């Protein structure tokens, strides 16, 4: 008797499993069908890799604007930490593949966004641009990088500058440097001065390779000039030609002034070398300023800036933008979020803390610090060039291979210039496939 009841129980268990499998499928379809018609969604799930410092504070600023406009929607921040979004992208990829997208996620403007569009993951936002009047408010050159086949796919929230030189005025004074270097030659002269004063010339962060690749990106731009630099990604400048070879020599020279043990450091660690007076110069995007301000440092006294030497008058930009994935569970909430992202109010709440300028041409300069005010002016007049490491010039495949090539070169003691040129060329090709 007991055995029989076991058997019945086991049979029932199997049945239960099978029916549970079927019924949950149906339930998912049902909710998806009904939610499309609901005007106010109960929840909004945002996916970003902003989780600390100024980035998180800026996001919180936009969050409060969203909450004020949408009091009935719960705001869920699925933020995942990781430099330049390297870990977040992995989680995002698997969610997109499983057709379980968040209601809006962060993507760099440019070729990185292009990848998502081509794989059919994003909704066309052209109508939203028209209804919000964004097609005249955002700069046309920026909208171009968000457009594929005439359709606009994301809403830019900011503009960052990648080619900025940072230093600590007290350290520079010790080495006898009074003015910011404006050319590569002056840059190297000043690095030599730091070295003579017993100070590490250039702060480097090698962990995960991308911050070194960021330096290369700048050196290529400074050595080749804006047109030839852009040509690298259009196939009109050769990666294995003499111009790049000369640029790589500059790269090698700059690295030789770097701190020992750079491979252990993330960029905020390298930044600390500069603010604490242990290293002279630092080439990093302007998010460094936001990071330092969130640490309580003061722009102008604890650290200061200049356009990176050799790239004065050139604005190497990148832009974070938000998207509307196809199949978002709370599409209306997603749209409401994008409206906040694109609004003047939202951008002016976000950007002063994030350390970036607004992507809108009509933002209010008075809420921004001195660096950002200057950056706004330069954004209007400078020659604009995209950043490679931050997604403008190449897709994810190119970026990954670019970082790998630099990581290999750097960890090998930066000796093999020819090998690096070959690897960079292969990285460019990987991005074309």
């Amino acid at each position: 008797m007991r055995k029989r009841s076991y058997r019945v129980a086991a049979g029932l268990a199997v049945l239960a499993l099978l029916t549970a499998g079927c019924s949950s499928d149906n339930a998912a379809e049902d909710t998806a069908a009904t939610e499309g018609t609901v005007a106010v969604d109960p929840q909004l799930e945002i996916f970003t890799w902003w989780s600390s410092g100024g980035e998180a504070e800026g996001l919180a600023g936009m969050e409060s604007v969203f909450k004020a406009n949408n009091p009935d929607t719960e705001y869920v921040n699925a933020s995942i930490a990781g430099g330049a979004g390297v870990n977040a992208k992995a989680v995002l990829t698997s969610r997109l593949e499983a057709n379980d997208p968040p209601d809006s996620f962060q993507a760099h403007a440019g070729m990185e966004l292009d990848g998502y569009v081509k794989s059919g993951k994003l909704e066309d936002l052209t109508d939203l641009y028209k209804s919000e009047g964004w097609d005249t408010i955002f700069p046309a050159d920026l909208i171009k990088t968000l457009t594929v086949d005439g359709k606009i796919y994301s809403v830019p929230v900011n503009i960052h500058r990648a080619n900025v030189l940072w230093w600590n005025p007290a350290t520079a004074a010790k080495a006898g440097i009074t003015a910011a270097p404006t050319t590569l030659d002056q840059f190297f002269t000043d690095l030599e001065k730091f070295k003579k004063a017993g100070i590490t010339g250039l702060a480097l962060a090698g962990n995960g390779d991308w911050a070194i690749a960021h330096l290369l990106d700048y050196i290529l731009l400074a050595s080749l000039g804006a047109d030839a630099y852009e040509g690298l990604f259009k196939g009109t400048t050769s990666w294995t030609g003499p111009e790049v070879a000369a640029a790589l020599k500059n790269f090698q020279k700059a690295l030789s002034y770097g701190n020992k043990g750079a491979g252990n450091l993330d960029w905020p660690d390298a930044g600390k070398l500069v603010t604490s007076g242990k290293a002279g110069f630092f080439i990093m995007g302007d998010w460094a300023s936001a990071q330092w301000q969130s640490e309580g440092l003061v722009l102008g006294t604890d650290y200061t800036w200049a356009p990176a030497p050799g790239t004065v008058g050139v604005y190497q930009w990148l832009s974070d933008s938000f998207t509307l994935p196809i199949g978002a569970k709370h599409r209306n909430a997603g749209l409401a979020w994008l409206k906040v992202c694109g609004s003047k109010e939202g951008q002016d709440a976000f950007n002063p803390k994030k350390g970036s300028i607004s992507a809108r041409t009509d933002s209010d300069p008075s809420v921004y610090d001195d660096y950002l005010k200057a950056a706004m002016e330069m954004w209007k007049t400078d020659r604009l060039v995209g950043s490679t490491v931050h997604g403008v010039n190449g897709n994810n495949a190119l970026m990954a291979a670019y970082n790998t090539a630099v990581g290999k070169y750097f960890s090998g003691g930066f000796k093999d210039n020819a090998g690096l040129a070959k690897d960079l060329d292969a990285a460019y090709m990987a991005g074309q496939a």
Partner: protein
Amino acid sequence: MPKVQSKQASARIGGFFFVLPSIIAIAIFVYGMIAYTFNISLTNRNSASVKEIEHVGFKNYTELLSDERFLHALGNLLKFTGVFLVGTLLSGFIMALLLEKGVAGEGLFRSFYLYPMAISFIAMGTVWRWLLNSSRDADAGGLNLVLQKIGLGFLQNDWYLSPSGAMYAMAVPAIWQMSGYVMALFLAGFRGIPDDLREAARVDGATEFKIYRHVLFPQLSPTFLTVLIILGHISMKVFDLIIGISGKSYVTDVLAVYMWQVTFDITNFAKGAAIAMIILFMVAIVVIPYLRHVNKTEQEN
């Protein structure tokens, strides 16, 4: 008689129903997923935007053979495995040997040595990232500072930043974590040998060394094999330790990290699946002969 038979048969059916849920679960979530991954690895899904999926045979595998980064990661993994296996076996065995004699406070030592096992690889990776700091002399921290303080300053080195020695440095935390476990296994092996054997050997006039060499060590070979298999497959799959210490830096690339990057960052699903299958194959080479051996000995008993 027929009644008994039907009883046995029904007991078998009942038993089958009991294991059925786990059979179904394993069939789907283990073997089904392996088959699915293998299938992807044979297709042209080389980016998320590929719409028409076709089978391309072993193209992804043959391309890996000329992929410089794949070979670099494979080489790194083999270096890591070699040092990790030898280091862990030696240190675990020596600790077991010392404790085997019955030291005072043996229980205390045992738990001390076993503690590292309780820490996850990722948490350990974060701590060891600081310990393996490459700064030297005045700036030194972590192990380099310890070496300085005990007068072995000349041993300071770059640890995982050294292109040739990176993977050997990576093996250090792994050895630190697993050697206590290996010690426990060997200790259990020693304890499983009846005292009669030692006494018989002593009566026959064998020295202590000879007792170990000819009586005890040979009986440990099944333990040795078990340890080798367990460490071997842990090593082939190493991922979190590397990510915890050096992230996705090229210098410490291993297959699992490369697979992760190819799949999720570059969205080259087919190539990622091919790397995953290669890792599975390498683990299978280690594990399957062992499982067959265990099955055989169980049947013999």
